[in-house]
């Protein structure tokens, strides 16, 4: 419509901004609305369309961006008091890519502080509410991005996935969340929490949009030393409606203790559906998966304690005004007031697991378990094209239900962390509803086989 000039970009963006202004006070998806620059950009794009110049792939599309991804001139808070007034002097590479494709950064979305959480309740700016049911959490940590897309306040969104932070809210808000292969999307400008695990990831309404956004943000970036130089595919080519002969492994451990029966049942119904559509399935077991969750948390907390050491309040961020203290005391006081409870827990426990005498027992051991889990996945992918399980073991839960009990909150990530530990790509797509509550289907493939994920996901989406 925009390309045919039936609708002006400016009109559309005005509509979206009005929508955000009406809805956001109920949902709390956005921390910052990028109103004026978006309207200005919309006018420029209308001129560009009129001029007949070549248009980008995201022409006039409003994109919501998680507030731990740096945007030049737009506040990037990480939902933390520590960065409440931080305005980055540069754009993350993914932001430059979206701008290059004529997309519009419509606003910055809420998250668990520094992406540490599974419900978007641990935010300095308050919890995000699930647009499907205001009593429920949106999932996390990229809950604001998911809620923004679900409530039509943005067409596409970016989150980051460290242990399920994009797939969980996608599942809880009935959306598509893709955690790409580690190294396929540049992390330059993503504020680090656990850098060996995390990837910037698209959250979208359907599989087509996921492939479109992934096309735009993936690729080699010399500014990220873990970026992988691979020839990029056009992933839209893999939006097929055919999975004839595809071999799928159903991972037993994904249906273990803690998984609600009705979740298991709905996922199995999806498996039978995929079989009807031509896929072949077989049950399989990856026994070391039972160690994935504790290993993940040990590694994530250890990396967090190191990554977040940079917040000293000196060069940027929160700094107390008192001048009478010495260096270390000021540093400790800045961090006392600047960080929330969950961030403090993870930094302190990460200091413990990295400390002399405990390093071997926790951090090093977790990294060795990671090797074993990776080997099990390699073996499984020698036999199967894709592995399937639920994204979340439970249905979306009530706001406030788990927030006082961190360990119970961590348990929610049991099915999503294996993809981060091993670097493999994983997608969560809407599977079905139970009592109006969404259940997400998780599909995993071997590294750099996002094409398979899109193929299976697209086939399922069109035949549900």
């Amino acid at each position, binding site marked *: 419509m925009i390309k045919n000039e039936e609708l002006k970009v400016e009109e559309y963006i005005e509509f979206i901004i009005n929508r955000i202004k009406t809805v956001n006070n109920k949902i709390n998806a956005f921390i910052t609305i990028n109103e004026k620059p978006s309207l200005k950009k919309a006018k420029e794009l209308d001129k560009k369309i009129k001029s007949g110049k070549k248009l980008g792939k995201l022409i006039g599309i409003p994109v919501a961006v998680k507030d731990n991804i740096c945007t030049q001139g737009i506040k990037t808070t990480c939902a933390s008091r520590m960065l409440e007034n931080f305005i980055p*002097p540069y754009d993350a590479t993914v932001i430059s890519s979206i701008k290059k494709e004529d997309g519009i950064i419509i606003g910055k979305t809420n998250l668990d502080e520094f992406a540490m959480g599974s419900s978007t309740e641990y935010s300095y700016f308050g919890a995000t509410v699930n647009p499907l049911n205001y009593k429920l959490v949106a999932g996390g940590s990229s809950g604001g991005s998911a809620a923004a897309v679900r409530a039509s306040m943005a067409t596409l969104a970016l989150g980051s996935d460290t242990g399920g932070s994009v797939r969980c809210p996608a599942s809880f808000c009935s959306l598509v969340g893709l955690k790409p292969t*580690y190294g396929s999307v540049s992390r330059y400008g993503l504020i680090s929490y656990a850098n060996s695990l995390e990837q910037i990831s698209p959250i979208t309404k359907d599989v087509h949009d996921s492939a479109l956004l992934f096309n735009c943000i993936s690729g080699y970036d010399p500014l990220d030393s873990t970026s992988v130089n691979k020839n990029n595919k056009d992933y839209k080519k893999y939006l097929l409606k055919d999975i004839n002969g595809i071999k799928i492994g159903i991972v037993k451990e994904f249906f273990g203790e803690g998984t609600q029966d009705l979740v298991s049942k709905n996922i199995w119904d999806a498996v039978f559906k995929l079989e009807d559509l031509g896929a072949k399935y077989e049950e399989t077991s990856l026994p070391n998966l039972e160690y994935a969750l*504790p290993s993940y948390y040990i590694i994530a907390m250890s990396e967090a304690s190191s990554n977040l050491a940079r917040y000293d309040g000196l060069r940027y961020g929160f700094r107390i005004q008192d001048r009478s203290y010495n260096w270390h005391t000021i540093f400790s006081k800045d961090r006392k007031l600047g960080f929330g409870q969950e961030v403090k827990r993870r930094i*302190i426990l990460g*200091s413990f697991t990295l*400390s002399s005498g405990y390093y071997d027992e926790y951090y090093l051991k977790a*990294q060795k378990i990671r*090797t074993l889990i990776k080997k099990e996945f390699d073996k499984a992918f020698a036999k199967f094209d894709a592995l399937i399980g639920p994204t979340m073991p439970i249905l979306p839960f009530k706001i406030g239900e788990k927030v006082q009990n961190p360990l119970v909150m961590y348990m929610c990530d049991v099915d999503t962390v294996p993809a981060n530990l091993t670097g493999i790509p994983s997608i969560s797509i809407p599977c079905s509803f139970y009592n109006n509550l969404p259940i997400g289907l998780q599909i995993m493939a071997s590294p750099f086989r996002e094409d398979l994920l899109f193929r299976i996901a697209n086939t399922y989406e069109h035949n549900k």
Partner: protein
Amino acid sequence: VNILKKKNTISKKDIKKLAWLSRIELLAKDEDIILKQLNQILEYFKKIDEIDVKNVEPCYHVIDLINVMRKDKQQPSLDKIIEIIPQKKARYVKSPRII
């Protein structure tokens, strides 16, 4: 230096040390809550004691990292970083006393 006495639970004394190592001042009222929570989490982490990892190499990164080198040529600098320093004098960061 082995700062913490080797054991698998954190004591009130340890939490003060860990908080200091982490440069996070804890409020006295928060110490007990955080202590209880951290010990619950550590108890759960003991799960990994069950598995034998003898002769297994650690996996620090899932992809084979290669050193990234670039030409020793000046790149555009981020002059604006000076503007966001909370307390400064001219172009310098104003820090608290170190000693």
